């Protein structure tokens, strides 16, 4: 009979460790909850919104500019009021969130890929290529992102694609600088030397060995940049140079209500604005905590 074996202590999975670190901040949890609720509401908007705000036939001018809580001709209460076209503000917000989130996430994802590739390439090649890429990135970072996006939208014209392109072009530099900095620090580590000695193909060295190790700072930048993309897109749309009127984002909704605000009909602008704020603040709270959790220098 073999001696009794003590049960092996259960290894804590990295995901669980990450979560328990993350959950230490109640504020971050609140932020996460806000983001999850808002994203869920945006995704399920066609099913949970009281009205399809794009369906012209479903709108009645009789319902225009009803204050919050009034019952309209549709037989249900407009909890957040209606806008100038008789559109239910709550429904418009839910659909506007879809547009805002889609644009920001698409722009963030493309900027992440483009910036990471540019940063890795610069760190990998060194020499002139590095100088050229990083000087361009520095030049761009000395200008505010909103200005660059504004210029690009001006050059490209209105439309979803154009706004996404402008955001990517304005934001990739942040990823490129982060990726370049992290990659320059990591590429002389022992594991990278080992990979080189093993004569692994460069693509494999970059993607399997280097990339996972520079991912944490990139993830932090990505969260912040998605929040920034939402704010920039909203600003562009508010200024009337962003999303087309056919695809109203939160910024468009706020702009539409602006003219009525001076006459005291605050709800057309204020509620979309509050949704925008909740989203931006939620993402920033999550990003702040991610920065702390993913920072190896703060590891206990």
């Amino acid at each position, binding site marked *: 009979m073999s001696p009794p074996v003590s049960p092996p202590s259960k290894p804590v999975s990295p995901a669980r460790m990450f979560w328990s670190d993350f959950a230490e901040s109640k504020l971050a949890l609140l932020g996460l909850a806000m983001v999850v609720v808002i994203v869920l509401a945006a995704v399920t908007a066609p099913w949970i919104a009281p009205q399809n705000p794009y369906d012209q036939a479903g709108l009645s001018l009789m319902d225009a500019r009803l204050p919050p809580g009034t019952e309209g001709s549709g037989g249900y209460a407009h909890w957040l009021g209606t806008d100038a076209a008789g559109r239910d503000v709550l429904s418009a917000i839910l659909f506007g969130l879809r547009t805002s989130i889609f644009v920001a996430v698409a722009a963030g994802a493309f900027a992440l890929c483009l910036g990471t590739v540019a940063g890795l390439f610069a760190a990998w090649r060194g020499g002139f290529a590095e100088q050229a890429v990083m000087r361009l990135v520095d030049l761009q970072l000395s200008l505010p992102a909103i200005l660059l996006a504004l210029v690009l939208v001006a050059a490209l014209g209105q439309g979803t694609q154009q706004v996404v392109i402008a955001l990517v072009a304005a934001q990739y530099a942040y990823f490129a600088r982060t990726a370049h900095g992290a990659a320059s620090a990591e590429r002389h580590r022992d594991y990278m030397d080992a990979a080189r000695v093993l004569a692994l193909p460069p693509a494999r060295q970059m993607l399997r060995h280097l990339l996972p190790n520079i991912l944490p700072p990139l993830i932090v930048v990505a969260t912040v940049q998605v929040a920034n993309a939402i704010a920039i897109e909203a*600003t562009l749309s508010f200024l009337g140079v962003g999303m087309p009127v056919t695809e109203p984002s939160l910024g468009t909704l706020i702009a539409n209500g602006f003219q009525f605000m001076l006459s005291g009909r605050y709800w057309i602008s204020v509620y979309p604005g509050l949704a925008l704020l909740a989203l931006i603040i939620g993402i920033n709270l999550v990003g702040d905590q991610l920065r702390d959790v993913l920072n190896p220098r703060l590891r206990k």
Partner: protein
Amino acid sequence: MSLFLLKRLGAALLAMWVMSLLVFTGVFAIGNPIDVLINPAADQRIIAETIARYGFDQPLWVQYLRFLNGLLHGDFGRSFVFNEPALALIAQKLPATLELALTAMVIAVVIGLPLGLYAGLRPKDLPAQGIMAASIFGFSLPTFWVGLMLILVFSVELGWLPSGGRGETLSVFGIEWSFLTLNGLYHLVLPATNLALFKLSLIIRLTRAGIRETMLQDYVKFARAKGIRPGRIVVVHALRNILIPIVTVIGLEFGSVVAFAVVTETIFSWPGMGRLIIESIQTLDRPVMVAYLMLVVAMFILINVSVDVLNTLLDPRLRHRA
């Protein structure tokens, strides 16, 4: 020192050239200016004539050289909409924007510095924590949204301040200024506050971080040991040393204040060059867009160079590195 200055100027010129290339590609090569310039119903002769007049029939590099030649002579072309030189049009609007941006910077410094000092000297106090929490909001709230709320609260609900325009202006040396009349000052308060909030948060955080580090330094301890009054220690010993990074940031941020004025000017109908650029984007007035861009870029680069040079003068260590 002169070698450093030369190097820095060379880099600045190179940056300007790269930007001219980017602006040219962005504004002229992408999209079709002919669509904007010519009525689609015009006959072939007029179309060909207009194309030849603006040089759109030339190869792209010829067009670029012409564009560059114009830039070097300060000629950005005439506005399609106003039929005036684009540069003159922007120059007319410049004082209004500068007035707004400078007022915003003054507000940010005058309020931000004391608040940051307080938050740094008494970090545990409840008001200090409140200040820091508020500064997070100042960072993450979109400028245009804050502007809307200011209008809603102070103009619509309370009726204390006007919601737009420059109000009465006083002409000095042929330039109109709002801050010289009482009515103009009333009009300046809301937009300047709106523009200041982001920088205010930044200055609060910088000052707080700086003062917390400085108060632990030996020279502060020594000053305390000498029995110098706490107020004098803060103002004369600590503040002087944290002022250098703060001045640097204020200088660098001035450019972005001018850029953000685009948003504030639109909300508060402030007749500055930010509103002009938005209008020119909407009417596809390319010469004005290009002139604005090149001016703003030149301003950014100029600010960067001056700050570099100033820092070198202030800090001898940087001189030897360069």
